[in-house]
């Protein structure tokens, strides 16, 4: 459902079926809509069996990395010797992405149910749902839903807790999330060790995204084959995905489509196309950390993991940011660099200094004080920031810069040569 719009006939409505339906938020309302049946079923299955179903379905992490979920679950020790933990990543902060918020606002029990099933699959007794601090409404709704479910003893001895973040994008990185839960600064950890061996509190841990877990009850109920069959392009990208479309489209919102759906149709058909009189200039399909696509690439791009890679970008979180011909790409890339500079945790030199320097260089260009050599400097800096740090925030800053200069070089040059007037004061 293209919430807040009416569902579009070309959507495949699974996760978003009850977006906008206030009764679906309640425990009774959810049960009425077939909720918690999958959890009942899962409780009769062995943990490994649940994992096998999810593996078979081809479900991949919807937070951005696209790692096969069943495989991730299978990394947990089969022989349970220590407490196991599940962390639910509800820290949605990737610019352009707003799907997890909707899942929690409208179908909190879907997330809780998915969480419980996952806990059983990985033999965890405790789960922490890490909700970003700014999500005051989803947090309140989750609190209420959890209270209702606990009152009904829905999860037996399993303990699901909400943990509120306090304003840090980097806490969406799985190891930083664990550190934040432990009461530390949200610094990502060096891997290895991996969370399944040494996670939160030093115990085996799995971290899953909200959208990933919300899909699990559906997979359990309707079977792996059903989920697997939903693949329009590449068989390795299965199921549905909520694409958060925002920016310069007529009808922004969350649209649920089958993997492999053409980006062109999503923009021009489902979202109602550009504003009157405007044309598509650029699109970032996976949240701001993936390379920018120009118009031709956008119109060719199929929305699954492989399709995006083919166009030189990534599916990421599925946050589709749309720029039409009125957008100032240089300014927006600067604004994205500023985002990363603000959010850097400060551990790695390349990220800490590089994101800020990148921002400064583009600000100077916008202020009419850029030099042609600045573009080479930006590209060199971006290369220094890629593949050399503890986490990929540094790489994420480089992605829009490199793709922006590659595909919209003339816009940068217009500022440098003075053809375009300055918008910023140095």
């Amino acid at each position: 459902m293209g919430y807040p719009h009416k569902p579009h006939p070309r959507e495949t409505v699974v996760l978003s079926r009850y977006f906008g339906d206030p009764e679906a938020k309640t425990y009774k309302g959810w049960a009425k809509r077939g909720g918690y049946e999958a959890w009942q079923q899962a409780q009769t299955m062995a943990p490994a069996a649940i994992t096998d179903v999810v593996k078979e379905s081809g479900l991949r992490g919807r937070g951005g990395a696209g790692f096969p979920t069943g495989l991730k679950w299978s990394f947990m020790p089969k022989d349970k010797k220590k407490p196991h933990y599940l962390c639910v990543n509800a820290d949605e902060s990737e610019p352009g992405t707003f799907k997890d918020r909707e899942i929690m606002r409208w179908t909190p029990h879907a997330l809780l149910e998915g969480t419980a099933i996952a806990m059983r699959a990985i033999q965890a007794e405790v789960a922490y749902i890490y909700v970003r601090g700014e999500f005051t409404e989803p947090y309140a709704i989750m609190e209420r839903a959890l209270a209702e479910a606990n009152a009904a003893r829905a999860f037996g001895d399993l303990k699901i807790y909400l943990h509120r973040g306090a304003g840090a994008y980097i806490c969406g990185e799985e190891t930083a999330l664990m550190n934040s839960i432990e009461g530390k600064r949200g610094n990502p950890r060096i891997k290895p060790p991996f969370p399944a061996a040494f996670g939160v509190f030093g115990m085996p841990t799995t971290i899953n995204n909200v959208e990933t877990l919300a899909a699990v009850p559906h997979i359990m109920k309707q079977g792996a084959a059903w989920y697997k069959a939903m693949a329009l392009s590449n068989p390795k990208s299965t199921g549905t995905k909520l694409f958060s479309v925002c920016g310069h489209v007529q009808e922004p919102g969350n649209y649920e489509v089958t993997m492999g759906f053409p980006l062109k149709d999503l923009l021009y058909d489902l979202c109602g196309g550009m504003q009157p009189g405007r044309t598509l200039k650029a699109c970032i399909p996976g949240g701001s950390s993936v390379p920018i696509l120009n118009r031709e690439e956008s119109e060719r791009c199929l929305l699954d993991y492989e399709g995006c890679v083919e166009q030189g970008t990534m599916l990421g979180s599925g946050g589709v940011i749309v720029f039409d011909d009125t957008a100032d790409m240089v300014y927006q890339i600067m604004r994205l660099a500023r985002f990363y500079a603000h959010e850097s945790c400060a551990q790695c030199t390349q990220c800490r200094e590089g994101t800020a320097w990148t921002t400064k260089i583009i600000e100077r260009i916008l202020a009419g004080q850029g030099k042609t050599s600045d573009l080479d400097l930006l590209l060199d800096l971006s290369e220094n920031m890629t593949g050399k740090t503890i986490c990929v925030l540094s790489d994420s800053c480089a992605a829009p810069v490199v793709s922006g200069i590659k595909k919209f070089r003339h816009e940068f040059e217009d500022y440098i040569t003075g053809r375009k007037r300055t918008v910023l004061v140095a």
Partner: protein
Amino acid sequence: MPEDLVKLTIDGVPVGVPKGTLVIEAAKQAGVLVPHYCYHPGLPVAGVCRMYLVEIEKAPKLQIACATQVAEGMVVRTQTAEAKSARMGVLELLLINHPLDCPICDQSGECELQDFTFQEGRPATRYSPEYPKRFNPVEDFGPDVLYVPNRCILCTRCVRFMEDVAREPVLNVSERGDRAYIGVHPEARLDHPWAGNVVDLCPVGSLLSKDFLHKARAWELDKTASICSGCSQGCNVTLDTRDNVVVRIRPRPNLEVNQYFICDHGRMNYRWMNRGDRIEAPLVKRRGGGAELHVVDWDEALDRAAMVLRGARGRAVALVSPKASTEALFLARELLAPFEWTGAFQVVMGEEAPLAAVPNLALRAERAPNGTGAELLGYIRNYAAALEAAESAAVVLVLDEPETTVKTPGALLYLGTMLSDAARAADVVLPIANVAEEDGTFVNRDGRVQRYFQAKPPPGMARPAWWVLAELLAVLGRGEPVASASDAFDRLAQSVAPFAGLSYAALEMTGKQVAARPAPAAAEVTA
């Protein structure tokens, strides 16, 4: 067992190391030293500076050597174009906000940012002069530590030291991104007894010692290996001297004793080494009465002392300082051997201050470096008994104890550095060198004998105590004079069982165990 070692190649050099060794340590064995900041063998791994990026065959991306364990058959290359370019990139980024403070920065000359930039950095900056550099004012962290945020490269060594080694997290990283700096809470100062180590650990001039501030330039300093004389722990130190004045003490690594650290008490324990009010010439009282001491040369002084000793019968008492070298203590004993001999020392005590995470390392209650050495040589701690014995002794030898007032009918020989009132009562006063002015050894509380080296010349005609005593023995016809501290030690090793077979060469730079370690007290056993 050689078979249990993991074999790998680093820059073409094959090495074999135990399983679990980090590539950075294995590289040292291959003689490969790559610039890095945040890694330190005495601290937990952080992996944040991102300097030591190396190419590891079969790994898709560059890896940091400080956080990668060795694997069989691993091929590591540290000097590939990509790795060097990555390091150049890090150095460039560290310098964009770093102020051009070298002319006024204490660290200049011993700064790892200078050194590594010279080695692998960019010749010129690409940071536009129009960008302001990040600025924060200097902060006073505590009794001796100043923090200059502008120079900080956020390697977090200081934070990790306080948190994981001292186990008192009073330093934090505050804020985020390029606004980050090292912070303290206003209610807690950096006054931990081992806090001064953060100054040594800081690779740049960000954490500074107030004591050393603007005192000397690194390249003006001569460095000499020594042993701290502040307590009985026997931490290995380096004395930094400039124009024969000791200006700073820094730790010297010894994994058996003090790892890489020294306490603040020891660190500040050097000003007395430079005192000018020293006895600079031998002194004797004229025969035939008169309480005045007259300056004489060594020959006359030694003759006079020998005459006193030859003429004495019965009891002899040695009142020695536990700061005296083992060699001197041995030769003093030898000197008084013909007598009914009592030797004793007293030790000033203070509060103990352990370094939490390092087993068996603390500022010790016993504030002297060679109490154990004295004990091994037969000196007792019952100073009062010795003072009493002196009241009926024929000869009393006082070795570097200026405050000891001796009541004796016999002759009083004083070997010391300062002419105190008590010393003026002596018949013969012989000037000696202090710990910075001679070679010698101390035996620490754990029974480890360690060498210290001469850092500056003794003043005037003062000589090492072992030389004085050996000369005296020679004049008495009881042995050859000793040409060096090494020879003195050899003589000691021949006579004193625990030292059998040892020599200065055998002691190397980190010493050898000669006596059993005392069993740790219950409170000392750490996890």
